[in-house]
């Protein structure tokens, strides 16, 4: 029996009157991991800010649809209820670990202030709990790290600290926004492994945002592909990445270099659409090799393909399937 931790139904997100994300439907169950992929400006980070309750600082808001986090309506204006939500039920690992830590504050203080704010039971043994958190994210010599300042740690260590901070309130859902983007490849792998291990050990759900299909393939069970503020394809990671049905997903996979691949990489022609000039029909239509009259006229809705796999394309059921099963993607 599964418990739903997050349910976004048809949400749209607006900043300064501009609708940047439209009609997003996503669900995450306990113990489940969801990847969100898309290129710059696709709305993936904005969507996860909405999930983490961080829209208001940038002047954004959920303009329609409903968002349930845990058993709470996250669109309701009840700030008190929301305070119990963020950090405790849902927690965020931010993008840039150097900027996300106060340069004038020791790592230990970051941890203790968070424990004090989130975890009333541990206040008596603050230091022990802080050390325990650092150990759980695999940091050696935690006593020393507690006394250090952010700039004294490497990028990978800082990212581990960010994860330790994120799990301090024993959240049920962890949202990681490009957690590995700023890191070396070897460190990336360790961080992904850590996220996978932690979510498994603590029975947490994970939402992983990335523009890197390899990262999502390595760490998630299902994936949602976003383009121009909309989810265009969604399903089990394995299925979506091996048998993509949406032309955008296909183009994205073809644009990706793999070991042993010798031919030319296929770029996606054209530039991503901009929020103030969304096309009236399918937003990918101007760049889509298969677009026809229908695509310019009407926005496609998500349609079932089978096995939890859905896609938003007028020509979804035509024979545009690209079989990538032979490509060595999932093992990279």
């Amino acid at each position, binding site marked *: 029996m599964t418990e739903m931790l997050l349910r976004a139904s048809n949400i749209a997100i607006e900043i300064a009157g501009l609708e940047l994300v439209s009609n997003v439907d996503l669900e995450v169950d306990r113990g489940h991991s969801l990847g969100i992929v898309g290129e710059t400006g696709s709305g993936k980070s904005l969507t996860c800010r909405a999930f*983490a*309750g*961080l829209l208001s*600082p940038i002047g954004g808001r959920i303009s329609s649809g409903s968002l349930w986090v845990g058993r709470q309506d996250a669109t309701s204006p009840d700030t008190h209820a929301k*305070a119990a939500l*963020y*950090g*405790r039920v849902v*927690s*965020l690992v*931010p*993008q*840039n670990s150097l*900027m*996300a*830590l*106060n*340069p*004038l*504050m020791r790592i230990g*203080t970051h941890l203790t*202030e*968070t424990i004090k*704010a*989130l975890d009333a039971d541990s206040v008596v043994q603050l230091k022990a709990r802080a050390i325990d958190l650092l150990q759980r994210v695999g940091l050696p010599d935690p006593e020393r790290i507690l006394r250090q*300042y952010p*700039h*004294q740690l490497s990028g990978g260590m800082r990212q581990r600290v*960010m994860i330790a*901070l*994120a799990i*301090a*309130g024993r959240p049920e859902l962890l949202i990681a926004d490009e957690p590995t983007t700023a890191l070396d490849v070897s460190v990336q792998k360790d961080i992904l492994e850590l996220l996978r291990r932690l979510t498994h050990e603590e029975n947490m759900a994970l939402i992983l945002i990335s523009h890197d299909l390899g990262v999502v393939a390595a760490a998630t069970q299902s994936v949602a592909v976003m383009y121009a503020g909309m989810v265009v394809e969604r399903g089990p990671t394995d299925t979506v990445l091996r048998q993509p049905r949406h032309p955008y997903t296909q183009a994205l996979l073809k644009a990706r270099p793999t070991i042993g691949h010798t031919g030319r990489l296929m770029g996606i022609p054209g530039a991503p659409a901009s929020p103030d000039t969304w096309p009236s029909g399918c937003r990918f239509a101007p760049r889509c090799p298969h677009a026809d009259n229908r695509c310019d006229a009407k926005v496609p809705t998500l349609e079932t393909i089978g096995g939890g796999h859905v896609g938003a394309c007028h020509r979804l059921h035509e024979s545009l399937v690209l079989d990538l099963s032979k490509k060595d993607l999932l093992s990279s």
Partner: protein
Amino acid sequence: MLVVRTTFARALQIVIVGLFVTVGTNLLVRLVPGDPARAILGEKASPEVVRALRHELGLDQPVIQQIARSLGRLVQGDLGTSFGYRGQEVASLIGPGLGVTAGLAAVAIALSLVVGVPGGLWLALVRRTEADLIGRLGTTVLLALPSFMAALILLYFVSLKLGLAPAGGWAGSWPENARYVWLPALALTTYLGPLIARTVRQAALDAIGQPFVEAARARGVPRRRIVACHVLPNALLPVITLVGFNAGILVSGAVIVETVFAVPGLGSRLLQAMSTRDLPVMQGIALVTAVSIVLFNLLTDLLNIAVDPRIRRTH
């Protein structure tokens, strides 16, 4: 290591300041057309006084020799002798005044911090545009107000009209001076306070825009703690540099404000020296204030090293 290097750099600056005063005045004196002693003292001065000054300035010797002589005396801590108060040592004349001016400046800095830091933080936190507008307009007008005009206005309203403070004078010892010092210090605060408020406001807004504030909020740290522990320390950092940078302007203001309130500091000494064209005393005051300011800057350098962990690392 960094501390040693910073201290050495400031010590070097003190040496250069000493060289600059000595060489600069000696050269400048010779560049003035005609008889420099006569130019300094004016047409009405008696021949004996002019002759005394000629000797004091070393005009009867080659310029290089005179510079060497002045430097030699300076190294021994001898600032020369006043010719306004015949025979009196310049150092003993300006010593007490230096203490008074330093006290006034210290109280002014403290008052400015007390007013400016909470004020600036408040301006950064209230999002209402009226408060922002009033804050910006208020600081603009205050920054445009010269210290001596602020002193006149405070003298008139606070002292003469309301009788809340003496119209001037000095007790001579602390803490009795407090009664006399606060109004002149407030006059100086009209400049430094708004400047600090503006800096804190801008730095606080910069800090609020940083991802670490958002990250702290996302993990449930209470707003009050975010302001006190994340925004405030980062907003205070530039204030140290600002106060150090404005030390010279503050002393300039202090010497003028002192003359308005008849505070017996360097300003009053300067006024006396001006009336008798007492160049050695003025030179001494310039040197002593410059060295004090460099020392104060050393203090702010060290304070910066102490509070910002990043500086220790990057050097």
